[in-house]
């Protein structure tokens, strides 16, 4: 015999409708005796680490990306090429001499170990970077940045030294090589961060969080900036590095040839302090341009032109 239901659940989508209080006797029968706190009553709390507290959040966020779109793929390829070039240039412009591992290996009479560590660091930077680029793993990318910068840190004289003897001895060509090394490093950092940025943007577009009008124009502008900005940065860097030639030339033009020659031969101007002086001069000019609000004025002039 089928037992008849006495409640109203069949009428209200399985909900029992009562006009009186529910039976506490029934509820009491279901109650547990323990005073244990239910698991779902404890909220999940993320306690930030010391580093996270210092930076105000995680340095690299854990983000799951969708498969890379065309822009991201292009950036990945560019970053990979840039990393390869950077690794080669790093190897050529950074000799093992003067590094901490060189000093340590010499201390134990095993100079080969220093060179091995040096090469290993460059290899780690390269492999880690490649992995980070194609897996879009920010941790690996960060490690490669750190390692590739670390290999350049060495106690050396002001004179530029290269890891390979075959490289040119001329001052300008040496400086150009240095600038290209710095540009490759900065471009590598920019391209890898671009990969993450555009992956995030692509995800936001595909999830409908953001709508992008004229995607092609926006990406084209980014590519254009990737071409122009390094050129500008390289030019500024060249100016600062060439200060030991520029100042004597200016002084020479003003008429004092002897002073110009003395300046050109001065150790201070040809050393790293000359570069520091050049930096100070160039960035003082830039700072004064910002101080007089020049960028805004130029922008206003451009916007209002032809009105």
């Amino acid at each position, binding site marked *: 015999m089928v037992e008849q239901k006495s409640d109203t659940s069949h009428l209200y989508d399985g909900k029992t409708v009562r006009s009186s209080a529910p039976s506490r006797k029934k509820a009491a029968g279901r109650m547990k005796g323990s005073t244990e706190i239910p698991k779902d009553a404890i909220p999940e709390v993320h306690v930030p680490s010391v580093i996270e507290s210092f930076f105000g959040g995680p340095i690299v966020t854990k983000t799951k990306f969708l498969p890379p779109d065309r822009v991201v793929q292009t950036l990945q390829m560019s970053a990979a090429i840039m990393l390869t070039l950077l690794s080669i240039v790093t190897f050529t412009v950074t000799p093992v001499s003067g590094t901490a591992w060189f000093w340590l290996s010499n201390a134990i009479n095993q100079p080969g170990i220093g060179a091995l560590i040096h090469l290993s660091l460059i290899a780690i930077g390269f492999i880690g970077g490649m992995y980070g680029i194609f897996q879009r793993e920010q941790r690996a990318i960060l490690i490669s940045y750190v390692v590739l910068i670390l290999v350049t*840190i060495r106690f050396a004289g002001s004179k530029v030294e290269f890891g390979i003897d075959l490289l040119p001895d001329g001052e300008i060509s040496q400086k150009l090589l240095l*600038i290209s*090394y710095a540009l490759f490093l900065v471009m590598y950092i920019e391209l890898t961060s671009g990969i993450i940025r555009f992956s995030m943007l692509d995800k936001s577009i595909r999830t409908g969080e953001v709508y*992008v009008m004229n995607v092609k124009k926006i990406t084209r502008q980014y590519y254009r900036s990737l071409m122009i900005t390094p050129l500008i940065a390289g030019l500024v*860097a060249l100016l600062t590095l060439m200060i030991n030639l520029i100042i004597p030339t200016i002084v020479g033009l003003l008429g004092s040839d002897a002073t110009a020659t003395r300046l050109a031969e001065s150790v201070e101007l040809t050393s790293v302090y000359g570069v*520091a002086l050049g930096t100070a001069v160039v960035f003082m000019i830039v700072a004064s341009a910002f101080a007089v609000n020049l960028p805004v004025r130029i922008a206003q002039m451009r916007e209002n032109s032809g009105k």
Partner: protein
Amino acid sequence: MIEILTIGGLLVAWSRKSAMFASLAIALYLLGLVLRNQQLVTVAVVLLSFLTWAAFRTTNADVSSSGRRLEDENATGGIALQNLVALRKLSSARVFEDGEIDVSIRIQNKSNLSKVLEVRDRVPEVMRIKKGANYVLMELGPQRETEIAYTIEAPLRGFYTIGPVCIRIQDTFGLFHNEREIHLYDDFLVFPKMEDIKDALIKSRVPKIFTGAVNIRNPGEGSNFYNLREYVPGDAMKKVNWKATARSGGKLMVNEFERDAVSDIILLVDSRSVSETGPVSRNSLVYSTRAAASLAQYFLSRRDSVGVVVYGDEIVSVDRDTGKKQLYVILTKLAGAMAKGNTPLKVVTNRILPHINRGSPIIILSPLEDDPTIIDAVRDLRSRNFDVTILSPSSLEFEFDARRLDRTGYELLKTERDILMSELRGLGANVMDWEPDMLLNTALSGARGF
């Protein structure tokens, strides 16, 4: 509904990336000087040049990085968004809960330069974007305009504002951004959702002089048959029941009808702080306002006169009246009901009693919590022959469903609540413990003992 922009605040910001670039550049520069290492110094110089150029490129006449805020400025010169205009249009300024509003924003670039803009139209947090996006990244050509369209869904009643429109310009590398707010606002109102009520089974025991749609079982001018009686001079001939006259042996008999009357219905909505206990979308106040709106619509459609009293930190009332206009007045008041204060029910009843006709039905929508005067207030109403119905959305259920209350606490509080309800029932009030997801109709039937 179309508004032209005004000018908003200014925000200049470095991104985390630019901050890291700058820190790295400074660190490498100093380290390079200390170690007399030209490679490090060169990297630092390139990084600094990179940053400077990006900052230079980000600068925009409209969203300028002058570092001044609008409040300190007379809104002239480089601060003004001279060349960007925003216009917004809403499909409707009044919707019901779960209703949709179509929003369209037109952005015009009046300058001779192309701009890459990020435009975010700020939408209230509780709103859901149903279609389109309120956050758009665009490249807007010189002397061009574009339209952004999106649809929002309004899940909760209330007064809301869309705006301001945030415009952000950042360099292509994402190093710096300058943000501006266009103070363009549009207000809209979300009314509580209404449920169809078949028959609330509530009517006044005291007739009013105007005839209405509710039958009160007293003879008078109405539509339903009540009785037969002998003709008295003055009765209209159309009321004569000829069949009954023939049967009565010559006596002229006339039909008597039940008198229809207009009821005064008073809805008391509890909007004290305690009524918002529970999740935002499922709490006592949400349910009470929906019920009040549904009841008001039902009674007004019967040509009853309906008044609403919302009490929280103060007593807000809508005087009794009839008609569609009254419904919108009530809905507007209910839309704006905020959970605040702790005015006891007794204070409310003392205030309104002198102004209500005796016998009028009073419907109280309250969680019945944290108010020691409830019993006194209901006793007072009952002693004056008011028909009291209490619909009590239980915050315990909301809390328990949201797992904010453990079983023991729930049972304890439930027992207290049941005792209070039994006491109220003992006073002759129709009380219903309104559980979440129960239809209002069902709850009302339960309250009336059906």
